[in-house]
């Protein structure tokens, strides 16, 4: 009897060993694929569309975002705006991430209705085109390529958003009694073959914010960080947050703050 247990244990060790080796191989293979694809990332097509939208006079007020929208670096300036957000915007009296800020500009400066933007904020699997807001975010993000994340943590209001985001990540609820940290709070966790980053560590947080906005090869759609947050809520079986809400900004602030000082590579590519 004892012999049999030992044998079973040995089999179990051998099996987990090969499973993790397979995971490693699969990851290495996928990394090669991604490196190859990053050289010609279809996200660039969305950058081009976003640039046109940024410079075009649009909306009921017929103004361009390039002439009216301040992303924190001066009106119309996109260089470094993505890596220096979320930040506090005095005119809106709120801490905002880039997507939320662009939505604010579109409603306040161009006169678009928020409800119209929020009706279809993300590209669906069967949509041929990404919504305007996604193209705009992709264009703005391209202006921070190869710059370091530099969210202004010294700003008390940004710090507050960061701390709230941190508390939200630890908040357990829903039918599964899950928090973000259940999957993303420790090293070495995974769902099926997908390794999950530990968002409380600088390396893990970087993996959480790197590559967004990203082109998803599955379905060929362009998606933003806001979409990623919404989908996390959905996967947790939480009610999904309202589009461009403070809650999502707080979570993005938590991740970006932890990733501060590390390099952002621009719009990415996802499987």
């Amino acid at each position, binding site marked *: 009897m004892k012999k049999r247990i030992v044998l079973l244990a040995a089999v179990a060790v051998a099996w987990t060993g090969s499973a993790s080796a397979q995971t490693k191989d699969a990851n290495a293979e996928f990394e090669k694929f991604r490196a190859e*694809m990053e*050289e*010609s*990332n*279809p996200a*660039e*097509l969305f950058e*081009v*569309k976003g640039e046109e939208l940024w410079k075009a006079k649009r909306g009921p007020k017929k103004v361009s975002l390039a002439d009216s929208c301040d992303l924190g670096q001066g009106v119309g300036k996109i260089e470094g705006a993505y890596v220096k957000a979320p930040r506090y915007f005095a005119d809106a009296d709120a801490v905002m991430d880039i997507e939320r800020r662009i939505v604010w500009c579109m409603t306040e400066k161009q006169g678009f209705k928020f409800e119209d933007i929020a009706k279809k904020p993300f590209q669906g699997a*069967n949509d*041929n085109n990404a919504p305007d807001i996604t193209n705009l975010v992709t264009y703005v993000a391209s202006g921070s390529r190869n710059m370091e994340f530099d969210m202004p943590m010294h700003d008390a209001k940004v710090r507050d958003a960061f701390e709230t985001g941190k508390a939200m990540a630890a908040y357990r609820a829903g039918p599964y009694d899950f928090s973000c940290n259940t999957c993303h709070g420790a090293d070495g966790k995974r769902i099926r073959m997908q390794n999950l980053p530990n968002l409380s560590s600088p390396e893990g947080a970087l993996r959480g914010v790197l590559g967004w906005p990203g*082109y998803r*090869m599955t*379905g*060929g759609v362009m998606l933003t960080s806001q979409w990623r947050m919404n989908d996390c809520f959905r996967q947790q079986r939480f009610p999904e947050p309202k589009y461009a809400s403070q809650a999502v900004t707080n979570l993005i602030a938590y991740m970006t703050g932890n990733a501060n000082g590390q390099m952002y590579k621009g719009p990415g590519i996802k499987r």
Partner: protein
Amino acid sequence: MADPMKIRASMKGDAAEVRILMSHAMETGQRKDAAGNTVPAHFIQTITIDVGGKRVVDGQIGTAVARNPVFGFKIKGAKAGDKVVVNWVDNKGDKRTDEATVA
């Protein structure tokens, strides 16, 4: 009206490396929409590439190619400064021509 392509061309050794990103739905005609109706096929059928005024690629593709396709070619005999002209035509007759210069 089709969206513009992104073309990158640079000399790598004795060949020009040309990378092309195309913006296209590439519908196979096999999918159904939410209402259950077949989404009509819509895909790029022919691609041509001219380098320095000479036709170097004259190809046909079909529905097996993904949405927003990426193509890469190594073209011998090209030199820096050559003009690269890429053209595609889809099954609905929609077309697009863009150009770049070999760096």
